[in-house]
């Protein structure tokens, strides 16, 4: 039994000399609901394609269930245990909903017919309708059905709720949590919807420019991170060298906003040493952690 369903170390991939992944280190604990976050072009889909054997890495290693994802034979073995939702949610347009289910079922010996019936009803999917006639939301639902019914140990979901209405999003998120809780299935999903990630993920990784910049258990990250709002008597001296743990500093006149990830007591001590400084601490949510790390900010000092 591997502790990690997915593990990458120093994973590199370039397209036309432009790095998409630049030494990605990622560890997805088995049984976790893992949110994979990043801006457009950060390298999320490239990572997923490398894990699924669609791309080959230029360097580093990727392992699924301890097996080398770059080895085609091992990757097939791993894919038998993976439920997958693609970013574009496209299926064979010439098949009907029923046919595409019947097509997919034999590839997965642990196919869950009980879930198939349940999701057909829950998602209101018309079995006789052609895939080409489905809306994007319905295609997303069908894709999810095909992934969730595989009886998979790992679900790799690339923007799984893309195109779904809010009610369907809630249904899907609830199902994902239920599957993870009841079967111990690992769920690795990328999303731009931070509220969704905040709602169901127990661990996250934020990726930017092909590197993991924040990674860990979400509750721990939220507990570690704090925003320190400092009001100074005078302007902040340009010579200040912040102690370790200061992730981001923004200044607006005499007001300085500091995002701290750890080492809070030392940071607070440094602030208190500034003449006439008063400080307030605020909890930080996932959205703020994400935005502070990936957003380019011309007012940022660190």
């Amino acid at each position, binding site marked *: 039994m591997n502790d990690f369903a997915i593990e990458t170390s120093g994973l590199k991939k370039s397209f036309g000399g432009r790095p998409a992944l630049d030494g990605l280190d990622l560890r997805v604990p088995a049984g976790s609901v893992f949110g994979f976050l990043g801006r457009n072009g950060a390298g999320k889909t490239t990572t997923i394609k490398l894990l699924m054997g669609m791309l080959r890495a230029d360097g580093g290693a990727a392992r699924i269930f301890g097996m080398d994802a770059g080895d085609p034979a091992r990757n097939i073995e791993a*894919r038998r245990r993976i439920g997958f939702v693609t970013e*574009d949610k496209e299926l*064979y*347009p*010439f*098949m009907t909903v029923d046919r595409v289910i019947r097509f997919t079922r034999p*590839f997965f010996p642990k196919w869950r017919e009980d879930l198939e019936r349940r999701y057909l009803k829950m998602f209101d999917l018309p079995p006789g309708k052609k895939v*080409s006639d489905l809306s994007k939301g319905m295609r997303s639902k069908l894709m999810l059905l095909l992934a969730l019914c595989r009886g998979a140990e790992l679900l790799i979901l690339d923007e799984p709720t893309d195109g779904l209405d809010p009610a369907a999003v809630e249904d899907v998120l609830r199902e994902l949590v239920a599957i993870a809780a009841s079967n111990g299935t690992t769920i690795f999903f990328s999303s731009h919807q931070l509220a969704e990630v905040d709602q169901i993920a127990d661990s996250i990784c934020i990726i930017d420019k092909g590197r993991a910049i924040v990674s860990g258990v979400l509750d721990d990250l939220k507990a570690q991170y704090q925003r320190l709002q400092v009001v100074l008597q005078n302007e902040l001296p340009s010579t200040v060298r912040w102690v370790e743990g200061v992730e981001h500093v923004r200044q607006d006149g005499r007001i300085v906003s500091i995002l701290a990830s750890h080492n809070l007591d030392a940071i607070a001590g440094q602030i208190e040493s500034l003449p006439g400084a008063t400080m307030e601490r605020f909890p930080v949510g996932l959205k703020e952690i994400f935005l502070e790390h990936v957003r380019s900010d011309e007012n940022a000092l660190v």
Partner: protein
Amino acid sequence: MLWYKAWMETRLRLLMLICVIIFVLFQVYSHGDSKLRGPALLNALEFMWVLSPLTLAGSGIRPESPFRMVKGIQGSMYFTLSLPVSRLRLLAVRSATGILEIAALVVAAFCLAAAALPAVRAQITAADGLRYAVTILLCSTAGFGVSTLLATFLDQQWQGFGSMFVVFSGRWLFTKFGAQPSALDFFRAMGTASPLVTHALPWTAIGLSVAIGAACLMAAVKVEHVRQY
């Protein structure tokens, strides 16, 4: 189930080719028995048998549809690649389906001709018919291989143009620079130099076609093995 997918992807093209066969047979019927071994008909048959493998070949991975503008066709290959099957198996099933369909076309052509045209029953012996069928199957492997290879790295519409360009360039080269008639000319072996005329199997042409087809299919396997999607 991969067979089913391959069948779904190609069935309309197969139907279209059966319509071409019916059209050719109708031409023979309307021109009378004297045209049965005429060069016009034999050239039409050659064209049809050159066209068939180009139409029925595919990689099994890149998206295929009889109509290019079908919504959602492009990304379906990611779903295919997520299935726990090797790329070699995807290619093999798709190729085998194409070859079986060519065989089915040959059988359909003979059955239709024998049923509809009394002259065929009267003038073409069973042995010649069998030789012709074997020749068609084996001499079409070159075109099938070329088209399959191109399907591994070209989109469907470019695969069609590309394979027609390569195959008809080959046909032109045979005509321009080959000895006339050339024993290697597997195009003519399906038309004016077919067993219907020569009453013998064109082994040299068959050998060349099978060699080209096998080389292209092996190259297609290599390409698919390293291809990134």
